[in-house]
């Protein structure tokens, strides 16, 4: 009897039962949204070779979030200022010293991150450090949901308007410049949307794992296609699907949501790594020149 009842209700239960909770509907919505935004951006990050930069910016927004909370302004503004500021600082130190770029990046972002940790412990506020570090889509407030929504719209609009120019900038910046495209603008545009996307990603998976949102979907899609447009579609799809599955797993298994989302992304990447039609290691003997 019990088995029978379970068999009938089972599939519907795991799918629809969570949806009866307001917090789950919101968690799914925000995770899917952030997944889509970060998935689209991840294509540019992987093609430009900015994984480390993504890591740097996402960590560097930490003190900005804390300061913004303390001042009572939207945390995305503080995060944006510190995200872009960290990149400017990286550029400045690299230019003015003989230290190599990857060292400067590592140095600056850990410095910013440490500053964030110190500020959290020093500034009296109701910020939950764990929420910033590991994300909490299940407990997202209305204000945060609204902010994430606005950020997502801004990022997607800019990425859609400049998608061709950004692709060209990643592929052949010299040609882009020689036909009169302002590559300095594109560079800072990409950095700005990176800072914004990091703030959005922070909501679902937290600062520590947000870099995964910014590179894994792009890397997965890169193994699956040789077309840029298809790559963006696949990256968004895999990212959104990972986010939704991750939230469901988190709900049913009572595990940490951010970790669960990123783990699903990693598993999808591993599947592509093994089984991708052309570039998977099990199929690659004949095609890679």
């Amino acid at each position: 009897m019990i088995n029978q009842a379970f068999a009938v209700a089972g599939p519907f239960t795991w799918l629809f039962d969570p949806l009866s909770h307001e917090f789950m509907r919101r968690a799914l919505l925000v995770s899917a949204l952030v997944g889509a935004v970060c998935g689209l951006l991840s294509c540019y990050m992987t093609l430009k070779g900015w994984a480390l930069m993504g890591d740097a910016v996402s960590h560097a927004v930490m003190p900005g979030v804390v300061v913004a909370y303390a001042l009572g302004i939207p945390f995305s503004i503080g995060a944006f200022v510190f995200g872009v500021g960290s990149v400017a600082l990286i550029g400045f130190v690299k230019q003015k010293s003989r230290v190599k770029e990857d060292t400067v990046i590592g140095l600056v972002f850990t410095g910013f991150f440490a500053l964030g940790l110190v500020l959290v412990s020093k500034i009296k506020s109701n910020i939950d450090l764990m929420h910033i570090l590991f994300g909490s889509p299940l407990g997202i407030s209305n204000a945060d949901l609204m902010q994430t929504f606005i950020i997502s719209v801004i990022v997607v609009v800019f990425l859609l308007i400049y998608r061709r120019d950004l692709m060209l900038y990643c592929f052949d910046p010299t040609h882009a410049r020689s036909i009169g495209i302002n590559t300095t603008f594109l560079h800072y545009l990409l950095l700005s949307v990176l800072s914004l996307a990091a703030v959005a990603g922070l909501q679902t998976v937290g600062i520590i794992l947000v870099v995964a949102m910014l590179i894994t979907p792009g890397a997965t899609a890169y193994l699956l296609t040789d077309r840029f447009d298809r790559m963006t579609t696949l990256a968004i799809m895999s990212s959104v699907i990972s986010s939704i599955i991750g939230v469901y797993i988190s709900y049913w298994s009572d595990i940490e949501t951010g970790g669960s989302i990123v783990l699903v992304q990693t598993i999808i990447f591993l599947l592509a790594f093994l089984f991708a039609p052309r570039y998977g290691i099990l199929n690659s003997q004949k095609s890679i020149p």
Partner: protein
Amino acid sequence: MIDSLRKGKATEISRIQANQICVDYNGLVALYDASLELPGGCICGLVGMNGAGKSTFFKALMGFVRPSRGNILINGQSVKHAQRDQAVAYVPQNEGIDCSFPVSVWDVVMMGRYGSMDIFRIPRESDRKAVWHALERVELLDLRRRPIGELSGGQRKRAFLARAIAQRASVLLLDEPFSGVDVRTEKLMAELFIQFRNEGRTILISTHDLSHVRDFCDLVVLINKTVLAYGETSKVFTSENITMTFGGMPPNLLSGPITSEDSL
């Protein structure tokens, strides 16, 4: 020498005109007092050692570096203006390109049209026609759907040449166009260069390979931090001048392809 070449079309504006340009990077002089005037419709070799200022000269023509003194006119206009008119196309060396980038040959050639499109870069019928035509000319039409990474070195070179054709540039800057290309591509490129010249385009080829200069170039520019000499290849491309360009090394290197490392 140039004057004789330009006889009969004296009313035409020079394609490239550099007047005593100086370029320095934070005080380090890369190019000084370099003057040059190239007419429309010529193939010109830019010859010099590594570090002689070839790439700096290219960068100045593309508007990437601003001369600290002197000025450059392309088609009688400022470099910035020329850029907006899509007048200058740069064909990169193979090494400078990420071959695993997920774009097709068609996509790459379409990039030549971006400058003429609106902000969203949505191709119009005329853009597609231009790309089709350009691919036809470099004999890559059959391979237009291929990812750029699956082309041979020579085919890739032709793809970037097609991009310059699609751009309808009047000045083509080619960086070591003959390095790492197959015989078919080399022959095709030589034919194309002659067609370009007859269409009135000016082709500036930066190269170490002296034998190609003699085979393809009407004019030659010898540089070493400044323009040492320029003019018709037959008159300027002498052993003394080449010796001077390569810092006093004997010109017996003329017999075959050389690299600057050999000549240093």
